[in-house]
């Protein structure tokens, strides 16, 4: 599945990357699957996306739960809990 990844704030800095276009294997079906798939790349991915870290995710610019299924061509963003206002 083709996806457009976006990273913000401490995740962007930790990965040294603000975005990436990727094609995922068929077993990557949900947000949680994608996060594990990326963490398998080793560091800094493993460290930044470790399951102990609280990370929020947006699918097509809408905040979603980890169990949400991915959709072809989606924009998927990972970021820390928000701190605006």
């Amino acid at each position, binding site marked *: 599945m083709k996806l457009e990844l976006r990273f913000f704030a401490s995740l962007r800095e930790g990965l040294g990357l603000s975005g990436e276009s990727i094609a995922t294997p068929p077993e990557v079906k949900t947000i949680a699957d994608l996060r594990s798939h990326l963490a398998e790349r080793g560091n800094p991915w493993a460290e930044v996306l470790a399951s102990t870290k609280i990370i929020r995710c*947006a699918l097509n610019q809408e905040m979603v739960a980890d169990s949400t299924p991915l959709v072809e061509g989606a924009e998927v963003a990972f970021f820390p809990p928000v701190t605006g206002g």
Partner: protein
Amino acid sequence: MHSFPRLLAAKMQNDFIRVQEADFDLTTEVKTLRKNDPRVGAVVTFVGTVRDMNDGSQVKGMTLEHYPGMTEKSLEEIIQQARGRWDLYKTLVIHRVGPLLPEDQIVLVAVTSAHRGEAFAACEFIMDYLKTAAPFWKKEETPEGSKWVDARVTDDAAMARWK
């Protein structure tokens, strides 16, 4: 069929969302928001500013990052939720991004309504939701170096009150 786009356009003109680097002037914004609207009996505003202290560290300045596109969408969603709960005339949210210094203004929420009760509640609701749902992030400059601000549990608790 023809009334739908017109209604949609009318609705959009009553909600104003701006994400900008520039500062804002409260008096000017309130004047514009309630201009030519004699239905208005209450205007409630909230202004958030930069403190020089956070979590025991001195703050020399900060930089605000956001997620362009999602930020505007999430603020629209927050305002629509407020409209579902209270009768509001106009709403305005301005959120600054980029570098800011202590005492600078960060955010403005302004709401007009017929009566104060609805305006007070809606303004607080919008602000509580913004704190937990709008994609903004603060990075503070302290004497120990720069660090990303951690989200507060008290912000989640403030939002949970509205559920």
